[in-house]
């Protein structure tokens, strides 16, 4: 047996797993009868159909022609970690450090994901965006954000761990990037 289409093969497996997962999960809710459906009925059958279709996708991936563009592209874990990481950390920081500081950190750390990182531009960009955010979102639209830091004593425990650790990691990446570019 030879996989002809890597993309479809793994997508198929993913659909099967998700379908089975949702269907099994649904059985913990009341199924009811067709005339009086419980909360589990519709998702259960959707899950079953998803798993079946996923099976078709998987089987189809074993046939047909092998093509260059059917391979799964390379995952860029650095970019993934930097982008998702800086967003998640922003979420944690927002409630504790306030909008302005969190924003600057988000912009600088996420900028590290670019192939052409420049600290000067990142800082300039961050300053511009602080002003823009203040003008457009805080003054203009009147969105209610926590703007300024909360005393550290009032932080929840997870924030006390996540924020310093992530800042240290970010600074290490920043320094290594700066050294690497010289």
């Amino acid at each position, binding site marked *: 047996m030879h996989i002809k289409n890597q993309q479809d093969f793994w997508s198929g497996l993913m659909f099967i797993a998700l379908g089975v997962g949702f269907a099994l999960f649904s059985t913990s809710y009341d199924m009811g009868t067709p005339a009086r*459906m419980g909360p589990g009925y519709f998702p259960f059958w959707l899950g079953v159909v*998803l798993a079946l279709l996923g099976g078709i996708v998987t089987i189809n991936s074993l046939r047909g022609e092998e093509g260059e563009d059917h391979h799964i592209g390379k995952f860029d874990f650095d*970019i993934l970690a930097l*982008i998702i990481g800086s967003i998640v950390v922003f*979420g944690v920081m927002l409630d504790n450090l306030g909008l302005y500081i969190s924003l600057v950190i988000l912009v600088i750390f996420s900028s590290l994901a670019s192939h052409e990182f420049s600290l000067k531009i990142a800082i300039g960009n961050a300053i511009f965006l602080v002003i823009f955010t203040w003008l457009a979102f805080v003054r203009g639209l009147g*969105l209610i954000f926590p703007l300024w830091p909360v005393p550290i004593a009032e932080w929840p425990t997870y924030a006390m761990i996540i924020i310093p650790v992530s800042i240290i990691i970010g600074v290490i990446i920043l320094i290594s990037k700066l050294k690497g570019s010289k």
Partner: protein
Amino acid sequence: MMELFEHLSLGFSVAFTLENLSYAFLGCLLGTLIGVLPGIGPVPTIAMLLPLTYVLPPTAGLIMLAGIYYGSQYGGSTTAILVALPGETSAVVTVLDGHQMAKNGRAGAALSIAALGSFFAGCFATILLAAFAPPLAEVAFKFGPAEYFSLMCLGLIGAVVLASGSLPKAVCMIILGLLLGMVGTDVNSGVARFDFGIPELQDGIDFAVVAMGVFGLAEIMNNLAQKENRVDITDKLGSLYPNKQEFKEAAPAVLRGTMLGSALGILPGGGAVLSSFASYTLEKKISKNPERFGKGHPAGLAGPESANNAAAQTSFIPLLTLGIPGNAVMALMVGAMTIHNIQPGPQVMSSHPELFWGLIVSMWIGNLMLVVLNLPLVGLWVKLLKVPYRVLFPAILLFCTIGVYSLNYNAFDIYVMGIFGIIGYIWTKLKCEGAPLLLGLVLGPMMEENFRRALLLSRGDFLTFVERPLSLTLLLMALGLVILVALPSIRKKREATFVEED
């Protein structure tokens, strides 16, 4: 006919208030701006700006969103002409002849042709929308839950048949979307489903969060993985006025493109992409000198540009009359309406006539604004193109997170967006499309509701879906579409189209 005028005058009275005019203008401006910026398409744009419109009154919010939609379409074609960078898929065809014209020193003329062609198409399609919406809504009033369920099946199938690569995978994505739509409290029993004990999940997953993760974040990560490629921008625009010959060649193509686009736009999933491809093929086929296509033939630019704008406009017809979104952008519009407590569907026209007609008229005004905006401001847009991506993407990230946070003022939504960003990134590697998922997510609760109600009414008899003639017709149409795609000859053609698109 009289009624049509009455409706339109109501629409004008709504759209011509200072407030709504300025929101239409703001929408067009923002849309064009973001459409011009490379690497961000209309879906993430609208998702990103959607939360900001929640603070507006419903009519103003929808007018602004519509403005963003066609604004970004316009902006996309500007970049396609000037730098051969299509801002979105429907502008891919624009590159072929539009950019060639720019290379031949006729950039200004190409921009004018695109803008005027789009404007004409927009006017025509708006009138079509105003004329056809009421009778279609009439039909929709005869629909019971069984018909609605079948209609949604047709809508979802149609959307993927016409607009995506692999059919089985797209259907899987729809079902996955429907399942994600089940997350949260079940309306009938009050049971919280798939919430994993997390209180925030009991309200369901917001589609804007999913859209920003799957489209916005995943797109950013994919763009970053490629090294930034420098583009040379045509600084010399040349005259903005097309010469006589260009005008002569473009005018009939605009007409044909408008007709074709209007018709295809109504089909679910048809929308802008399909119509611009279809129009290009048509123009090339009927042209006396097809060898000039791809070398800067005005018809090859004017046809597709008019077609995609007409389609963008008429794709509002199924949304406004039946409440069924035909593409991902329309799915976002459904979400925006639901947030304002407006159930999309035929009743919108009678229960919120000011919103309905105001929106339609503002589309026309928006189109006019775009012509006024785009031509004189071209120089500014060209400058914007020079903004490097490394400056742009942190800003996009920031706006996404701020937008998501402002939905509920809860950082939890930011984490969910991050998770969908990772999932979306994996999906792009597996070539699983996000648009069908979004449609499923938006329609999920509605579909389950109607499915349940239909079976409640029929006392659990599944045959109700095929015994009611209207419902049967809709289901047969859906089945017909699937069979049509499975036919070998059409399959080949379809595959060829999508290969070209990549």
